[in-house]
């Protein structure tokens, strides 16, 4: 089972995470982030906001990986992600992840049946609950799945920072390691919360993320 769990977190899994900067590209063009220090601050705020807003969805789907629960979480998250840029980023990554997982982890037939059942209904495939569901079906414990979600968020945004030439590849690796320690504290604070408590703790991020559609030229989808 470890092999499957590692594969889920591996950046080679083609889920399209690298098409997104999670608001970083817009923040750079709005001159909110221009230095490596500001990048570090931005990453911490992004992780805090991801933890408070999305970990409750990951947690619920991991502990109850049923199609019914997924449908409920998907509808609630669609109403919660009122920002169109982040909403589309979430559904494109979530549907890609579900498609990949259903094709790759064939030893878990319920992945395919859940996907097929959801394809026919009014379903958005938001990323956080889909990720949580797959973790749950792969037998990952809830704490690990929530840590995994913060891990891929950090991984993808640091990767975006490298491609936006904000930090070099070695500097990025150093930064990822430093911020990981902070991410673990953030995880302790926000893990295992019910979805009713999901909230934004860095509302500015949402404002910047919304700029993305105004950018004249852009590298990323979000």
């Amino acid at each position, binding site marked *: 089972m470890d092999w499957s769990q590692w594969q889920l977190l591996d950046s080679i899994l083609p889920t399209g995470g690298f098409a997104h900067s999670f608001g970083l590209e*817009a923040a750079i063009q709005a001159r909110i982030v221009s*230095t490596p220090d500001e990048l570090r601050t931005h990453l911490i705020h992004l992780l*805090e906001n991801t933890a408070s807003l999305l970990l409750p969805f990951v947690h619920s789907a991991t502990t109850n990986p049923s199609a019914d629960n997924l449908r409920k979480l998907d509808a609630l998250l669609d109403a919660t992600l009122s920002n169109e840029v982040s909403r589309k980023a979430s559904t494109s990554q979530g549907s890609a992840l579900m498609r990949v997982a259903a094709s790759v982890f064939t030893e878990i037939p319920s992945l395919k049946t859940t996907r097929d059942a959801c394809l026919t209904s009014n379903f958005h495939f938001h990323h956080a609950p889909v990720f949580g569901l797959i973790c749950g079906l792969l037998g990952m414990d809830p704490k690990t799945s929530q840590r995994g979600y913060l891990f891929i968020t950090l991984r993808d945004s640091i990767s975006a920072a490298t491609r936006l030439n904000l930090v070099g590849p070695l500097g990025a690796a150093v930064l990822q390691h430093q911020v990981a320690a902070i991410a673990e504290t953030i995880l302790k604070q926000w893990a295992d919360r019910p979805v009713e408590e999901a*909230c934004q703790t860095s*509302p500015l991020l949402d404002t910047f993320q919304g700029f993305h559609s105004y950018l004249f030229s852009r590298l990323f989808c979000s």
Partner: protein
Amino acid sequence: METGRVTVERVGGKSTVTRSFSKYPLKFILPNKVGSAGTDAVWIYALTYGGGIVSVRCCFSYLTLYGDRISCEFFVGNGCTAVLTTQASTKVYKSLGSRCSEQLLEARIGSDALLVVIPDPVTCFSTARYAQKQVFRVVANSSSLLLVDWITSGRHESGEKWEFQLYKSTNQILLVDDDDRPLFVDSVLLEQGSISSIADRMLDYQVIAMIVILGPKLKNIQNQVQESVKRLMSDQLHMPYSGVRASSNHAKPNSSSAFNNKPQLVASCSPFGPKGVGVVVRIAATTTESVYKFLNHQLSGMESLIGVPPYR
């Protein structure tokens, strides 16, 4: 426990307050005439004893000291228009111990009805704890709602910036004809003592605001605001002339000037809900005055619906 309730219904072809209840320390003021005669809208103010005319929300500030819980209910009947507003910012004073003052607003908006919630901002003083929840039950593709929800960093002119203990604001729009299915859910929590302070997370901005524009009566306003915000922001955004890393390595003075170049007011606009029935605008600014100006400018088209332009 309920502290206030207002019912607006159509009587003789006009929006009319048919029932109004409030109890100490809350009192509603319902002026007969606000704005021109041609518009059909009921305006609702609330008064607190000892506080002069303040808002439905303003009144709660006086209760903050005691950590009270206030709950109000508004019913806007089919085809009616109601406006809830304030004449001063809602001040939340220092909290005693860990008590938190809470405010709950529940509103039911009928078919073809419009509710306009245009308060002044909430200002939480140092160490204050404040939580509000606003729930709007609407009829899909029929009810209209304009909601402004905003907060300032405190008495920032005198240096008190984001020093309150806790602020939580939850806004929900539920579809009453679809088993209360959520159409829009937004919850913001600003609390000290996590990894970063509130001030850290707000960079140098002193005000954050959200405008929600929903429903058929506000279609024109939605389009105007979306166009205008896009124009405003497109001028503010610039591609770095070369790699950001290169410029920050070059000369130290650059980084401080980049800091000063941050836009004074940022806003972004996004459609939500099936077929983009609603639009949400999120704003951050360095001064309260600039947000008043922004709101006044962006919402000036409301005049024909409610008699006077909001935030005049």
